[in-house]
């Protein structure tokens, strides 16, 4: 197990390095002055210019430039944003938590609805139920997310007037940012309108989270179904039946854990598309997250923001996909089977 963890850590480091290389090369191709693209300082004073050239080793060869680039970025210097003149790192710290919050809620919705529905469609005897669920998931898989978001905000936000369609919280509530996660911040806040604010935050997150949940939800349903069908045909399920165990014990104790293992693996592969969708959803619902921040960065040709945003999101995805892989190995005694007897 220790060797395995070290191998995964190596993979993480190698992928991060590759990510740095990609960003470094892209930065040099940006249609702007290199020192501007690196630092975000539009009209540097002579002193600033010298400082930038020294920081990024602009006068030496490419290798030391790359090393300087990596050093700067790892020490937290992402330059300043062109538009807001703020440090990019601070802005990044402000926009990451709302994104995590949205993604987390959407993921929970997808898993909580998707797994039971997948099981239902796998275990249901009725062809009707199966076909309805499969048709619904295929449609959900094909819906363009931006269009779905627009339609939902039109129906629920404007025509029915039930839910707010933009932002994270009504601007009237002044909630001090402690964790950045609004759901926690409102709970931590001790004021007269604590619960109103919490309800408001909840109301704000429903539409974007549901929109974002559609894709993972459909994938979860389909994979749970496929895995469940596969597991229910195994000999050990029949053996469990022959032992006279009740049906729900067989499904919940023997079939479900085995079916969730492939689901875990697919969740890791789904992170990329999920992040893409999250960006679009954040733009539509004006969610103050990293996606909307990035897109506004590109509208304004804010190169430092683009680099930092891409770096942060890709790093998060790399981290989580490797984490899921490790969890998969840890949760799955079968993967120990492969190691069993090898060392």
């Amino acid at each position, binding site marked *: 197990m220790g060797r395995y963890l070290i191998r995964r850590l190596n993979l993480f480091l190698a992928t991060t390095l590759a990510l740095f290389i990609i960003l470094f090369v892209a930065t040099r191709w940006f249609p702007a002055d290199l020192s501007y693209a690196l630092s975000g300082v539009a009209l540097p004073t002579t002193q600033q210019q010298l400082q930038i050239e020294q920081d990024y080793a602009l006068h030496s060869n490419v290798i030391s430039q790359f090393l300087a680039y990596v050093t700067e970025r790892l020490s937290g210097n992402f330059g300043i944003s062109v538009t807001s003149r703020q440090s990019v790192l601070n802005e990044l710290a402000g926009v990451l938590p709302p994104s995590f919050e949205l993604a987390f809620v959407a993921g929970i919705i997808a898993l909580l609805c998707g797994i039971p529905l997948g099981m239902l469609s796998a275990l249901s005897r009725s062809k009707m139920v199966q076909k309805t669920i499969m048709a619904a998931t295929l449609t959900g898989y094909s819906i363009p997310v931006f269009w779905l978001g627009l339609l939902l905000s039109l129906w629920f936000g404007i025509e029915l007037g039930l839910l707010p369609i933009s932002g994270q919280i009504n601007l009237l509530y002044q909630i001090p940012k402690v964790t950045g996660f609004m759901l926690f911040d409102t709970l931590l806040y001790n004021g007269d309108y604590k619960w109103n604010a919490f309800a408001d935050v909840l109301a704000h997150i429903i539409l974007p989270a549901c929109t974002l949940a559609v894709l993972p939800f459909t994938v979860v349903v389909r994979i749970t179904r496929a895995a469940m069908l596969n597991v229910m045909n195994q*000999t050990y399920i*029949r053996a469990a039946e*022959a*032992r*006279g165990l009740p049906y729900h*014990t067989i499904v919940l104790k023997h079939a479900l854990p085995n079916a969730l293992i492939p689901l875990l693996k697919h969740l890791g592969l789904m992170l990329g598309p999920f992040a893409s969708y999250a960006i679009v959803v954040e733009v539509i619902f004006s969610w103050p997250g990293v996606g909307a921040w990035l897109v506004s960065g590109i509208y304004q040709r804010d190169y430092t923001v683009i680099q930092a945003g891409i770096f942060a999101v890709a790093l998060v995805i790399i981290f989580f996909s490797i984490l899921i892989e490790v969890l998969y190995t840890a949760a799955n005694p079968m993967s120990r*089977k492969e190691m069993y007897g090898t060392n």
Partner: protein
Amino acid sequence: MPLLDIRNLTIELDTPQGPAKALEKVSLTINAGEMHGLIGESGSGRSLLARAILGIQDPSWHITADRMMWDGKNLMEMTRLQRRSLMGDEISMIFQDPSGSFNPTYTIGKQLLEAIPVANKWAFWRHTRDKRLTAQKWLHKVGIKNPRKVLNSYPWELSEGECQKVMIAMALAKQPRLLIADEPTASMEPATQAQIYRLLMQLNQLQNVTVLLISHELDTLANWCNRMTVLYSGQVMESGPTSELLAQPNHPYTKALLDNMPDYDLAALHKKLMPTLPGSVPALRHLPIGCRLGPRCPEARRQCVNQPVLSHYKDRYYACHFPYHTEVPDDDLLA
């Protein structure tokens, strides 16, 4: 009263080519305390029959039977729940793929403990410990030397033979009256095979467990069973006490099976043909009408397009229009 009495069981399967009768009018009688062998080639519906007795069915099966009695109770009229409680409690089954019959994500112990009934319902704090002790006792009984270690290991860490022994222990934990062993020794070495069979034999004699032993090897069944039923392509060919069946088969198929057994005592002629039936087992889609052995049978005549009824002669049953008889029915002719 026989323990299990089945008359004219027919199972129809839904195949892409339409329904096919995988089992046709199968009758089987198992008396309490006997070791009953069920022999048939693969695809003859042995496992289907076993699963139908136990009551694990697929939705694509259509089961009809004139009679299916378990110890005087009608299995056909039972609800799913009653069948389920019968499984495990009174009828147990072990499968031909022992290591695949364990859930790979749980340890052996966890799965074995599931099968063990609690002795004292109210002393819940002692349940786990009691169950563990019982589990160890059973594992010891089936001949596992280090039960504690086996309880804590995952199924893939054990050999096939050990897995099968645990499987038997698990099947016995609820002390069933009938144990169905579906090819319990497939893919095992001869020494382990012998161990497993001896174990089943012991259980039969010491614990009074009735065993339905399913196999395709006539010689192993002949060694261990009191009675045998021969199945071919979903029809019962012949049934009777092993010794009589071996001494004088009534049915051409049984005779062919006996002839197939290599005889090491007599020197065979060089390049002599193996005595086998011509042709091959029909596929499920192209089953012949009437007696399914018909196209391959050396004795086949015109009547064979009608399925013969299971005739009864002394202790033996056979389904053939032209059986081989030892005793000439009319003794007067000899005189």
